[in-house]
Structures are given as C-alpha cells and as structure tokens.
C-alpha cells in the first residue's frame, strides 16, 4: 500500500511541475540537484481523507519555477515565490488525493502556509509517503501524511 502511495505521489508531483511550472522532474538527482532545501509549504486537508502534504524545494529553483509560472515581465518577489510554491503544493495535493481516493471522494484543502523544513519529517507511526524529484538545478521533496489509509479504489463510479 505504501509503495503504491509513493508511486502515486511521484506521479502527481511530476504532473504538477510539468503542467504548472514547465519543469520536467527526474527520479535521479545530480550533485547540484541535491543542494540543501530552501523553503517549504504545507497544505492540510480533510473530508474523505485527512492529513497534510508538505512540499519543499532546494537551491535557487523557487525563483526559476515562479518565473516559469508567471511568464515574462513580472518582478519575482519573495511573496510571489511562496505563492507559487503554495500553488504547486495545492495542485499536487489535489492530484494525489484524486488518485488515491477516487473521483467520488471529496476532500477540502486548506490554504497553503509556509512551514519550517522540519515539517518534512513524519511523526513516528503515521501513514506517510515521501518522494524527491530532480528539477533543473535543484530538487523538490514531498511528504504526504494520511491520518488513515484510504479504502481501495474499485474504479466503480457513482451513477
């Protein structure tokens, strides 16, 4: 179950970075991509599933990612960088919850908020999956913590 959760978390992360920030993640990290983490945000969720997702990025890539999302001609302030990181976390969270919970389950996501990098460490005994992806010149780490494991998705949709 946890391996499946990890695969879905990686897929959701890759899909989000590709779709929103035009950044193509890889599973292997170069030395440059293994740079220290710089900033982290957390999205809490409740409903059919409850828990939290933490997204952290390393090096200077947050500025690059924000620039990719904004397009040309905008000043990239620190506030906008955290806004961008929050949206990446928000969309990653929405995507992975859709994958593991199924389309007929609804979760409500809280607004993303900046957290300390220590939030990436799951408390002992909790159901969690973590992935890291290499990005151009840096990396992202994602932690998904569930208060309980979801029921298996059957693929049957509601009429």
């Amino acid at each position, binding site marked *: 179950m946890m391996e499946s959760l990890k695969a879905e978390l990686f897929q959701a992360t890759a899909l*989000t970075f590709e779709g929103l920030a035009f950044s193509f993640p890889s599973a292997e990290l170069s030395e440059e991509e293994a740079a220290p983490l710089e900033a982290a945000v957390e999205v809490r969720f409740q409903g059919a599933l409850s828990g939290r997702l933490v997204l952290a990025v390393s090096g200077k890539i947050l500025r690059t990612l924000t620039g990719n999302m904004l397009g040309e001609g905008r000043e990239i302030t620190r506030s906008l960088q955290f806004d*961008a990181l929050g949206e990446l976390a*928000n969309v990653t969270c929405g995507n992975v919850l*859709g994958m593991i919970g199924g*389309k007929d389950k*609804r*979760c409500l*996501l809280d*607004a993303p908020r900046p957290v300390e990098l220590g939030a990436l460490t799951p408390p002992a005994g909790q159901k969690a999956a973590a992935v890291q992806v290499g990005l151009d010149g840096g990396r992202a780490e994602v932690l998904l913590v569930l208060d309980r494991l979801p029921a298996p998705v059957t693929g049957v949709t509601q009429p």
Partner: protein
Amino acid sequence: MSLNLLVVDDSAVMRSMIIKTLRLSGVELGELYEAANGLEGLRVLEANHVDLVLVDINMPVMNGEEMIEKMRANPETVFVPVMVVSTDGSAACQEMARRHGAQFVHKPFTPEKMRDMIRGMMGVTNDGIPESRAVSSDGPDF
C-alpha cells in the same frame, strides 16, 4: 470576436498562469480583469462587461461556489458563462459546477484544453467564427 474575461483566484501566481495560458490558447482576448475572491469578482462584474468568468473554488472571503450562486441570482449576470478552475476534481465538485450551468477544468491545464473549452462555451468555431449563441440563450442548468 474578442472576449472580456474575469479571472478569480486568491493566488496572484495562478491568476497570472491562467492569463498566460489564455494568451497562448489562441483565443482572441479583449479586456482581462482579475479578482482575488468571489466578492471582488462580483464587484468587477458590476462595473464592467464580462463575457466569461474563470473562477477557483477554495478562496477566502467568498468562495467560488457562493460567487456563482450570487451571479445566477442576479438578472444582470445570470447568463454570463462560468468556467470553474479547480484542483478539486471530485465528482461532487464537477456536479456542483454542472448544477450552476458552469464548465469545469482541472488544474493543471493546457492552452489547447482552455481554447477548446472556451470555444465550446462561447459558440466559436476553430476558425474563430461565432456560431449561433445557443449556449447563452439556453441559460444555465439550474
């Protein structure tokens, strides 16, 4: 036919992303308005002619669903087409959009997806030629 669009999202980055995607989509754009929540969005609608609203759901002050409900209760905005742009791809969220006569697009999205949806909603062919305005004359599905 250029379209005046209102983008409602509490994230300034997401609003910029949506506008960038719209510019890349090939849809002919007129005025582009932005609002950070549903209440701001309603104020923009009161003061301007808007052809299409793209709205997020989870927002502070007034969420997207409440904004759409208020639009549908106002004779001035009842027929303005709405596209819900959300991370919540659940059946319940999509049903909520359908109930209010709105289309639904899941984040992330591509310019091509936006183009096809907008042209479908606004009755514009792939050549940019307006079709009959059957969509707006039918009104939302309450």
